């Protein structure tokens, strides 16, 4: 059996990848994907703990996250399309109408 720490390290790496991508990337779709990466990094740690402690709640929780993430993806992609239609760009630095 693979030890828990391996899963957690992988989960941490995934999460950090997500964070870095979120911070560094300018393309709004990449940022969106980075968020998904972070969510899934967390999901991984949930299931790892659930398997370790033989508790179902972790796995149940992952389903919830997936549902929310799906909803979010739907809304998010809709926004992205709307943004692209009006601004004709996917670069977040140029979507700055609210900035002073």
């Amino acid at each position, binding site marked *: 059996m693979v030890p828990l720490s391996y899963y957690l390290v992988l989960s941490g790496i995934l999460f950090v990848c997500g*964070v870095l991508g*979120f*911070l*560094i990337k300018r393309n709004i779709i990449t940022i969106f994907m980075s968020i998904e990466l972070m969510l899934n990094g967390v999901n991984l740690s949930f299931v790892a703990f659930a398997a370790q402690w033989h508790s179902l709640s972790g796995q149940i929780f992952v389903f919830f996250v997936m549902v929310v993430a799906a909803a979010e993806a739907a809304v998010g992609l809709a926004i992205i399309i709307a943004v692209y239609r009006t601004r004709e760009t996917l670069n*977040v*630095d140029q979507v*700055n109408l*609210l*900035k*002073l």
Partner: protein
Amino acid sequence: MTPPTSNPLLWLIPILPLAGAAINGFFGRQSSKKAISAIALTFCGAAFLLALWIAIGFSSASAPYSFPLAHWLRSGSFSVDFDFYLDQLSLVMMLVVTGVGFLIHIYSVGYMWDDESYYRFMAYLNLFMFFMLTLVLAKNYLMMFIGWEGVGLASYLLIGFWFTKDSAASAGKKAFIVNRIGDFGFLIALFLLIQHFGTLDFPALFAKIQPISPETTGAGLLTAIGLLLMVGACGKSAQIPLYVWLPDAMEGPTPVSALIHAATMVTAGVYMVARSHMIFERAPSALTVVAIIGTLTALFTATIGIAQTDIKKVLAYSTVSQLGYMFMACGVGAFSAGIFHLMTHAFFKGLLFLAAGSVIHGVGGEQDMRKMGGLRLYMPWTFTVMGIATLAIAGIPPLAGFWSKDEILAQAFSVSWVYWLIGVVTAFITSFYMFRLMYMTFGGDYRGAGAQASHAAHKSHGHGKDDAHGHGEPHESPWVMLGPLVVLAILSVFGGFVGLGNRFEHFLDPVFKAAVEPGLQEPIREAGEKSTEYLLMAISVSVAALGWLLAHLLYSSRPQLPARIAEKLGGLYKAVANKYYVDELYAALFVRPLIDGSTTILWKGIDQGVIDAAVNDSADAARHISDEARHMQSGNLRSYAGWVAAGGALVIAYMVWMGIR
């Protein structure tokens, strides 16, 4: 001490002028000058009549009277009430204050009639009467202190009455500030009395002090209290070293100089010392200090008076000098002689000032005696009454000044011939400068502006602050001004007779002698010393005559001589004419360092450097920090996310570190 008899009339005496001041002060602006005069004179006159009524009914058997009006302070066992008190001493003071005060009120009607702030003047005068009577009729030191401060306030207001004139405004300030120094001493003395005796009530306090034996060896509590009281008296009564405010106070209207700075307020210090005789008698060293200060002041300021050319300045220095006499009397234990001189001085010095005011009025506001002269022809009445006052102050018998001054000199001689000698020298100088004033003002020919201008042209030319009507040549004052002069002249002539056969002294005995231990202050003059007394009397009269003669010689028969003498004396004359540079000395010693210290250390150092700097620097620091911190709020989504991530990383790091520990 017999328990006081209740007399419900007492409190009305101070309250009446206060009512007058309130009415004139609040409604005077709209009323006519006639109405203002009527109110001011009615209330002041009523107080005078009431005082007379009480004086007529006064009997030494039922004295002292008192009337507790209301409670004031209650703090544990310590209490102070609004309590009025009348014994022989305050009776004399009350009559002098109301009597002379009333006369000067009448005079002011004529003198100030043309002033646009007439109502303000009358209200201030009435206010002064209220405070002065409170001072005199107080039953405890604290009420006396109210009056004390109140007359100071009234004096300040009246000195600076023509406040648009810079010199008047600063003279008022100077008087007020110098008086504060004295009041500081007075207050400390009161605190000491409260701490050690637990009361400020005169009868109770003196009953507690009475059993204490005199502090002959070394200085103790009573000496300290006495000296501090004397500091207060020095301020109010213009003694060395605090006399400097009084000559400057002559910036005020002349009736003010007469009432406040000659007849009444400045004698408050003498009254206070006499009232505290119980303390001073038990503190011989404090009493010696009083005598020395008085004697020195008398001589010192008399010499300044010689070289003054401003008619009011001469009288001001003369006042300081005469006050010195009174303190000398108190200092040698002759309190009743001091009060006697206080009374006669109020008559003749009030008269001198009012007559000087009449002169100033008559020549159109001129105060420089060098521009007067020959006025006896123009204003015979003023000349006559001023001549009487001059004879009185010079000590020519049988006028009032002779009796009181002689009394003081005799008492001083019995203590130490040094006091007596200085007193006689002062008497000589007094006589000299007073007759000098007379000759310069009334003798010779008129030297004023009107003398050069055509007598026929009665056009108005430039005139001084005192007067608002045009001036061709000097003229006699109206009767409303001359009336009080005549009354005061009569008092100056006959006022001294109350002292015949020591009657005045015996009248005051219940105040000054009753409490003294037998043998301590026994009558000094015995039958064998009668001849000495006559000799002293002869000396002081001849000295006064000598002063007259000298003045006649210098200022009447050989008018060129004074200038030559002044030239010969050179530096000395300059020093005297410049008042020994005392004002300059004080400025260099106290005023300048204080201003410089306040400017460099307190203002620029502490206020600007520390307090302002702390506020400004913390504001600057806040701005700099927020200037930096502002960059966090960039509006850049990813930088926000970066902060969130960094924060999260920090939290995790912290928790991991805690976990490891």
